[in-house]
């Protein structure tokens, strides 16, 4: 329960805190002490990083994830173009072989604005709720959301420019996403319009792919330029209420990235590639309170940390199916 509260607090925007002395298990304390005493580890770490620089690890999870993301979005497109009624609609609401699905945040906006819920929407919302509870909430973001893929490319451009010292990242206070979530919920209720849908890049890009692009793509392009030149991954990190909704759903999911302290060298390669590095606070030397920990609710299960970790201390695991996913 303590872990869950912390995980949700960080999701809502709290900064991860250094744990109190009494929070550590004896096993974790023993490993921390051992790691401090063992000076040979430093040399090992340097060797490890040097090795990694020469032999780039394959981005296995990213390849799998991009494949899934593109296939899901193409299914929508192909289904409509060929009129095969496999996956009808768009990401805001759809039918998969006739079965209703509704994006949780879009459904919430409609429910608050319209203040009436028809049975189809109940079915669609429940299906998606169970689906993304099972598959880990924000997994939607990195494995399905088409804006996420565009933002990843923008991130590559941002990282390149930042490396060349042409630009610097301007982080925002992460609590603003929770404020956005509340403001858009209140706006839907008070105005009676689904205000957030107007600017939702997820909805705009999804519809652009399926029904053809329109002026909405100018807004999406503006966001991407903002992310490239001003603030890395800004929309997904600081703004998107969809991400927060799914984060809450996935906070108690069986799908998690797991962390193992015993094998970790604390090189922080994982934090460099992470969209939401605050969830990886435990990899900082001395922070892990237990030997095995689960990465928090804001994690999108993109698997980049899993690929980046030279010691395989991070893994994407489904409770009970851990081995099968490796």
């Amino acid at each position: 329960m303590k872990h869950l509260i912390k995980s949700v607090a960080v999701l809502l925007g709290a900064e991860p805190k250094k744990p109190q002395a009494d929070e550590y298990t004896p096993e974790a304390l023993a490993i921390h002490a051992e790691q401090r005493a063992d000076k040979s580890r430093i040399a090992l770490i340097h060797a490890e990083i040097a090795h990694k620089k020469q032999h780039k690890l394959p981005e296995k999870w990213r390849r799998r994830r991009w494949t899934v993301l593109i296939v899901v979005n193409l299914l929508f497109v192909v289904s409509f173009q060929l009129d095969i009624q496999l996956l009808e609609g768009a990401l805001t609401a759809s039918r998969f072989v006739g079965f209703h699905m509704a994006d949780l945040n879009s459904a919430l906006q409609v429910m608050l604005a319209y203040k009436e819920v028809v049975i189809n929407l109940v079915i669609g919302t429940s299906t998606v709720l169970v689906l993304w509870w099972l598959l880990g909430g924000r997994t939607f973001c990195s494995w399905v959301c088409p804006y996420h893929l565009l933002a990843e490319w923008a991130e590559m451009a941002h990282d390149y420019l930042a490396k060349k010292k042409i630009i610097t990242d301007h982080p925002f206070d992460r609590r603003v996403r929770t404020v956005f979530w509340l403001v858009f919920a209140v706006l839907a209720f008070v105005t009676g319009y689904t205000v957030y849908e107007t600017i939702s890049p997820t909805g705009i890009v999804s519809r652009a792919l399926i029904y053809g692009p329109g002026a909405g793509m100018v807004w999406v392009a503006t966001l991407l330029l903002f992310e490239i030149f001003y603030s890395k991954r800004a929309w997904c990190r600081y703004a998107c209420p969809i991400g927060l909704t799914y984060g809450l759903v996935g906070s108690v999911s069986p799908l998690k990235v797991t962390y193992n302290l015993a094998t970790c060298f604390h090189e922080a390669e994982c934090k460099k590639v992470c969209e939401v590095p605050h969830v990886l606070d435990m990899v900082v030397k001395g922070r892990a309170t237990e030997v095995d920990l689960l990465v928090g609710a804001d994690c999108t299960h993109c698997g980049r940390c899993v690929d980046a970790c030279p010691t395989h201390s991070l893994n994407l695991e489904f409770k009970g199916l851990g081995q099968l996913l490796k």
Partner: protein
Amino acid sequence: MAKPNKRLTREQKARRQFLRTVVLGVGIVGVSLLGYVPVIGRWFERIRPPGALKEQEFLASCIKCGQCVQVCPVNAIKLAQLSDGFGVGSPHIDTRQQACDFSCDGLQCVLACPTGALTHHINYPHETDMGVARVVNEKQCLAVMGKGFKGQARGASFKGKLRYEEVDRWKPIRVSEHPYDLELCDLCFRQCPIEMRIAQCDAGKPPSADENQCPPQHAITFETLAFEDGITRKRPLILDGCVGCGVCEMICPAEPGVFVIDSSESRGLAA
């Protein structure tokens, strides 16, 4: 001027981050509220698909997924762009380009709607209320001029489709593939989906052998009257049974067309 090269203190950094977060917050909420402008300013009077609730309720309940677009056999439904503000992604029909001819018979768009923005309380074409046709350009009307019509109703390049039951019950074809030869033009009446159903019912053959498909009221007729020049002619007259499907507007060979669909007093269908 050279940039002063000084390191910011932790407090200064925090202060800057706070300020730019406030700007981001106000900025994004501000941009989203711009969606109000086209709605309040009534930039567009949209014809919504069959069963659409009143405009405000419709925009509140529509989840902007386009499932209605996908099921329409004549592709009459299009999604609005960002210029519709809060209406972005909401479905509408441009009746002059492609009207709703009810060729699906079962109101597929209504069935597809996941949120009830197209109310599930209606089942038949005559129960819909998208608007009402108005005669706005009577002088151009071929019937009023006493003329017939021969050829493709809207020219060879027109992409709009209609279902012609005598051609194919299930597959709508292009209007351009179905030329007419009429002694007196009555295309608006002839192609009216409501009038077609009434004719079928009068002949004892209601669509899908379902008596409920029979519209209770006529939608359009031709009245005969003596015009100012003393000549007796016919002219189209819209009746209470008109549901605003727009087929008369689409099929009218006059340019500009004789009809427009007025959606302003429509959709009293709130569930």
